């Protein structure tokens, strides 16, 4: 007897959201592989690295369920023809180089209409800071975005600009005019939906599931920042942190080695929406807070609005520089302010049982 709901295009992302990426992948792995195999009909993937560190590519290679080897040998993707989820173009792993590699980009553009996925890793910059084969990166991405049938931005840099778009804290401007992909596309007049999958780097489960969703035609529901709600709909501190009981008891880590809630040392969990705490990383063995604290890399405005990292979150407007109404879904302004003020009181009273939550 089968008690699990049947996986369909309609409930794909809903189940992912309800179960969490990890449990969903484990439970529905064979269904996902089957669905993608049926829907494959040669999807064409073009993975472009702009102002990137390649960390998202490396993170993709850490995919565990279904792990990359299974994707390598079971799911055929792209007109590369390789029995590999090998994109038609992907600088870091592709067998081809030089002019042949560039010709593969052109071939991708001429792929089956409706089946061309563009994945961008890294930030977009002003002209002249990144060239490949003598052509500016802006042109490469613009040309690809014009024909792409689905666009996925992976990692903090491609989604919101990340560190390449950060400003030095001495009043000077960002050195290369860097920004995220959706801002760039607006600038060059391309009006297409970008699925933003932030975190630094992208989590492989998020990416594998999003690619699968796109292929079987299951449109992910996105929040105001373009993120799939299934993965970025929960507050780290308030909803899923395993260290939350320490916070409620007022036990805080104040120097390395002390056990406790990481709020006072500067943890950005209270202003971060991601499922890291329950999904975890690298075969689900650990995540940032387990070995230190959260630095907030799923959010727009990172790192500048989250730095210095070792400084407690004081108040939301001061940190984010925006009013509550423009914050992401899942956050009710007043309640969020409550969280923070509650936390500050805890910090100040150093563990005393004070419960003056201000609404």
């Amino acid at each position: 007897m089968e008690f699990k709901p049947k996986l369909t295009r309609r409930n794909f992302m809903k189940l992912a959201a309800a179960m969490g990426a990890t449990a969903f992948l484990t439970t529905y792995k064979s269904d996902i592989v089957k669905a993608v195999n049926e829907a494959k009909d040669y999807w064409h993937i073009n993975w472009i690295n702009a102002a990137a560190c390649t960390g998202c590519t490396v993170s993709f290679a850490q995919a565990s369920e279904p792990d990359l080897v299974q994707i390598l040998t079971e799911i055929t993707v792209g007109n590369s023809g390789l029995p590999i989820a090998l994109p038609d173009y992907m600088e870091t792993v592709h067998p081809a180089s030089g002019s042949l590699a560039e010709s593969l980009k052109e071939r991708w553009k001429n792929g089956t209409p409706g089946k061309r996925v563009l994945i961008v890793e890294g930030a977009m910059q002003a002209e002249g800071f990144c060239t490949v084969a003598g052509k500016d990166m802006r042109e490469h991405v613009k040309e690809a975005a014009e024909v792409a049938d689905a666009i996925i931005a992976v990692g903090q840099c491609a989604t919101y600009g990340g560190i390449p778009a950060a400003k030095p804290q001495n009043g000077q401007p960002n050195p290369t005019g860097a920004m995220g992909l959706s801002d760039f596309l607006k600038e060059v007049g391309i009006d297409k939906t970008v699925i933003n999958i932030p975190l630094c780097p992208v989590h492989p489960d998020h990416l594998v599931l999003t690619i699968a969703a796109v292929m079987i035609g299951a449109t992910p529901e996105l929040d105001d920042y373009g993120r799939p709600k299934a993965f970025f709909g929960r507050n780290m501190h308030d909803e899923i942190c395993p260290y939350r009981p320490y916070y409620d008891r007022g036990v805080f880590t104040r120097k390395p080695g002390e056990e406790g809630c990481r709020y006072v040392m500067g943890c950005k969990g209270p202003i971060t929406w991601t499922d890291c705490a329950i999904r975890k990383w690298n075969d689900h063995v650990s995540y940032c807070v387990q070995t230190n604290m959260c630095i907030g890399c799923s959010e727009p405005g990172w790192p500048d609005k989250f730095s210095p990292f070792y400084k407690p979150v004081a108040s939301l407007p001061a940190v984010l520089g925006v009013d509550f109404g423009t914050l992401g879904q899942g956050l009710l302004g007043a309640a969020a302010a409550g969280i923070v003020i509650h936390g500050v009181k805890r910090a100040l009273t150093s563990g005393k049982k004070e419960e003056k939550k201000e609404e």
Partner: protein
Amino acid sequence: MAKVVMDPVTRIEGHLGVTMETKDVTTSTGTWTVVDKAYSHTNLFRGWEIILRGRDPRDAFFLTQRICGVCPAPHGETAIQALDHAYGAVPPPTAILIRNILHGAYYVYDHMIHTYLLIGPELGVLAKYPPMVPPALGKDGIRALGLGSSYAACIEMQRKANKVVALWGGKFPHHTSEYPTGVTVKPTLDRIANTLSNMTELWDFAVNVMVPDLMAIVSKNDHIAETVSSLLDIDFNGLQDLGPTYGNFLSYGLFPDYNDYDKWVAVQDGEEGYRDNALIKAGAWDGDFKKFTHTKIKEYVKYSRYDDSITGRHPSQGDVIVVKDKPGAYAWMKAPRYEDKVYEVGPLARMINTYGLNWKIDVTNPVTGESFTFKWKVLNPKGSVIDRVAARVAQTVLFATKTMEWAIELKQFLNGDIVSTKIPDYRYVPDNAEGIGLWDAPRGALLHYTKIRGKKIENYQCIVPSTWNLGPRDDMDQPGPVEKALEGAWLPELDVPTIANALYPDKDIDASAFGLGMVSWGDALAVALKPLGLAPLNMEKSDNGKTYNTSLAITVVRSFDPCIACGVHFIIK
């Protein structure tokens, strides 16, 4: 003379282009085209160091890791070493061991993916060795021909290595767990046990797959040498004749010993030394062991897009003025030099500075008790493709073993401090200080310099391995290591399957599983490449209208494991 361009150079980190000027060499068997001069162009600029200015000095640990997602951990470590130095305190034994375990496991991942995913495919083709060619025919190809068996296994194994990194670092890429003078993660028996079980599998893979794969490549070397020699009528000794530099090798040392940390710190202070109780020693080999001091490092900019007034400076004086359209300049990278000479950095430099030219490494897996000896005599004392690959394999075996030993040793320190007792709490940052971090990333010697004023970063400088190896000519007109290594590389006018058939004409591969009979190596490769649209693999059309096969040249470039995001991060002022 023709001009041949490889852009993008794929299967590296980042955006690299290489321009080669050729010359023709005529022998009794024909006229052959080889590389005369090469120019390395680095094609991305992000301005990392300026973004760091004005920030909390500790943010550098998180932010500099994001310079490179392939080698983030060493950037984090070097940033932390610079902060250790600036804080003027040393990490306790527990923290040193935890750092060593995390980075030991990280190294195993990094050297593995380079060996199989990045440089491996060309080596597999050259040596007619299917396990190192990508699994282009899928599971059927793996079963019938062993095509890509090691390549596919590597993807699985590198994941296990990164699991160990995540156990101690929270996640990989971009771990979170280091702190000035220590770490933020506690030693637990659970983490130790999990480390040992994963590392045991990795040790087994290193000893029983990686080493035999290397030896399989080497076993074809004489055959490759004879065939190419007779075809071209030249003296070609094999893969050791591909990619020599100058015979100068620089290493900063790696994996300190907590029993005598003073030797480690002395080199940060600018003293000459070997850091000789570290697992990998510091040194400036020039044919013999020489002590290293960072005071002899200077950066030159004659061919870089910066003003000539700042040439020849030590990194602590590193002030950079961009001249975007400088006449004659062709690179964003500067040219770092040691005593004004060109030094190669990387795995081979680490091995030579630690073991000389003859390596004999005895290891015992502390969990299973299995013993193994890795032996290698450096085939070309000026460095070569095969020596660099061998150095990575040797270090994978050595570091996998040591990571387990450190994990076992850590059991004695479960209750030890994880930061220096001089750190009162998370609020403490020194008002004014400066520090230098000297570590070796997989790609070679890595330096971070931080200057703290008013508890904030006033200046931050990195000199990274790929700047040493891929930088341009210097003020003395000496080509950089990769530029030098490419000189003399053969650019055949034959495609990959044709060369494979010239090397291995026998029809001895049973391709009946793919509807063919017995085929030769080149024909088998053609079968795999053609449907993928990869038939003209590595073929580049030059300005004289001829098309050249750049397989050998690109293998020389890849043997340095280039990382362009690291190399190009300079300050724009």
